[in-house]
């Protein structure tokens, strides 16, 4: 729908009914200090009594308010955005730090996880950046990113902003002064989910399952521990973010159940790229990209043997976890804490 399609409705229907049809209009009215007006009247009638000077502060006059609100409704009309319909993303190689060409073409589809490994400073985060800005041979790496097999249309690249891609990294924190419950409700509202209670509840439950230490819906998000914050961010990104592609930059040591976190993301048909130094995360991916000197040196499919070995590595990891918990709980570590294994 275009703005013009709403003008007649906005001009003739009483505000109360408009608010019932489009609850978001309450925000619009509040933003121009028109909240608390007589809702039995239409917007033009209400505007008759409003001081033009007040409207002018917001850069509007009476007529503009009608059109501006119509544009607002058009912008938020529930269209099925093409952003949701992503069937694949393709990375076409560019060049490494010394200009040698990368000989790769890698296509990833929803439900797949790709890890990115390599030494510190090798260019893992750079690759994530290229994906985020849908590089078109215009970044230092000269890589090109295709969506659904073709060059993403200019509009999507330009206007989607953070829409196509959601990002999670070690440095991110919550800064807003809200409880977990309020926070999730606020996010759901911005997604214009009309009945938000079930998804908010689910998100909270999933986040709590991922976190080592439990928290309540009444906890302030700023008071969550590192692991709890990460858990909430992952649950929220998986269940409440519209972005089909998720980029994760280093989530190690975060005190959360990494295996369940990855499962959650896969289960929600996201395309996940995760830059990591953690062998467990790296091997849990379907594929891993090896970065060397700024370039993609190899793309490795996780082998059957690696998947087998992963079980053993997980066993080692859970031994470590048990020892950590013993120490945390004020206990002693004994010889029996570590099962026998061959010396190297």
């Amino acid at each position, binding site marked *: 729908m275009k703005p013009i399609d709403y003008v007649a409705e906005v001009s003739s229907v009483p505000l109360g009914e408009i608010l019932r049809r489009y609850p*978001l209009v309450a*925000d*619009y009215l*509040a*933003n121009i200090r028109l909240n608390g007006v007589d809702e039995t009247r239409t917007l033009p009638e209400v505007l008759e009594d409003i001081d033009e000077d007040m409207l*002018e*502060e*917001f*850069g509007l006059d009476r007529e503009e308010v009608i059109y501006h609100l119509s*544009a*607002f409704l*058009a*912008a*938020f009309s529930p269209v099925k955005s093409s952003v949701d319909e992503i069937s694949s993303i393709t990375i076409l190689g560019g060049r490494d730090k010394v200009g040698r060409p990368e000989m790769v073409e890698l296509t990833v589809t929803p439900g797949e996880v790709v890890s990115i490994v390599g030494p510190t400073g090798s260019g893992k985060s750079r690759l994530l*950046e290229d994906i*985020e*800005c849908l*590089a078109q041979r*215009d*970044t230092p790496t000269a890589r090109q990113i295709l969506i659904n097999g073709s060059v993403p249309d200019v509009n999507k*690249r*330009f*206007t989607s*902003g*953070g829409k196509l891609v*959601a*990002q*999670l*990294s070690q*440095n*991110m*924190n*919550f*800064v*807003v002064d809200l409880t977990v419950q309020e*926070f999730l409700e*606020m*996010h759901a509202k*911005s*997604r214009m989910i009309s009945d938000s209670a079930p998804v908010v509840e689910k998100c909270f439950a999933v986040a709590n399952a991922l976190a080592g230490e439990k928290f309540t819906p009444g906890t302030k998000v700023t008071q969550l521990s590192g692991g709890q*914050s990460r858990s909430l*961010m992952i649950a*929220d*990104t998986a269940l*409440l*973010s*519209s*972005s089909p592609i998720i980029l994760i930059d280093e989530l190690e040591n975060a005190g959360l159940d990494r295996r369940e976190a990855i499962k959650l993301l896969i289960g929600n048909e996201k395309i996940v790229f995760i830059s990591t130094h953690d062998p467990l995360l790296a091997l849990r991916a379907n594929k891993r990209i090896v970065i060397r000197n700024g370039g993609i040196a190899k793309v490795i499919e996780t082998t059957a043997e690696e998947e087998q070995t992963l079980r053993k590595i997980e066993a080692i990891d859970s031994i470590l976890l048990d020892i950590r918990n013993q120490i945390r709980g004020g206990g002693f570590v004994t010889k029996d804490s570590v099962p026998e294994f061959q010396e190297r």
Partner: protein
Amino acid sequence: MKLITVAGPPSSGKTSVILKTIEALGQPAGSVGVVKFDSLTSFDHQRYDEEQIPNQTAFAGKICPDHFFVSNVEGAVEWGLKKGLSVLVTESAGLCNRCSPYVNGILSVCVIDNLSGINTPRKIGPMLKYADIVVVTKGDIVSQAEREVFAFNIREVNASATVLFVNGITGQGAVMLARHWQDAPEIQTLRDRKLRFTMPAAICSYCTGETRIGEIYQMGMVRRVEFDDV
């Protein structure tokens, strides 16, 4: 020459974004310049100098920097043309959050940061409402959900703007902004162009509703910058 106007609250990341976007533009050194409009002091020129970006700083003193901007932007454009720039960027820090130093037909960029609070977009008036592009900085330190809600709150105020996320420190996202700058129209002068929105009441002719640019339209307290001879 292309003219880009960049506005935004103090410390929102304007200078950082401008520097990263100039880098992403990849134009020959010295062909992109900046004029900074500030109130009392500014250290931005040091950062522009460091990158060898031709720049001028103009101090508004008692006048709102955005009002001051209108009385001097024409001179800035002349300076840029004489200097042979291919792109001129103006940076101004609105102090009142009411002024919008945007001119019809000139690419207008508003920079705000995620840390300023989730409801900030709803509090910034015409400066946000009349921008073509809203750049959001400091997304590297807040959660994805907060970024999404912030962007949503921006769209509630300015549904037609393009919202871009740029990291002022790493430059992530600057490539996208650079693309928009490349598409900005070429101009020879600003004379007779109009502001997108009247400036709120103060002390010069623009305070009283004048929107046309040009010396003959300026009355009252107008201070003019001495731009370097080129």
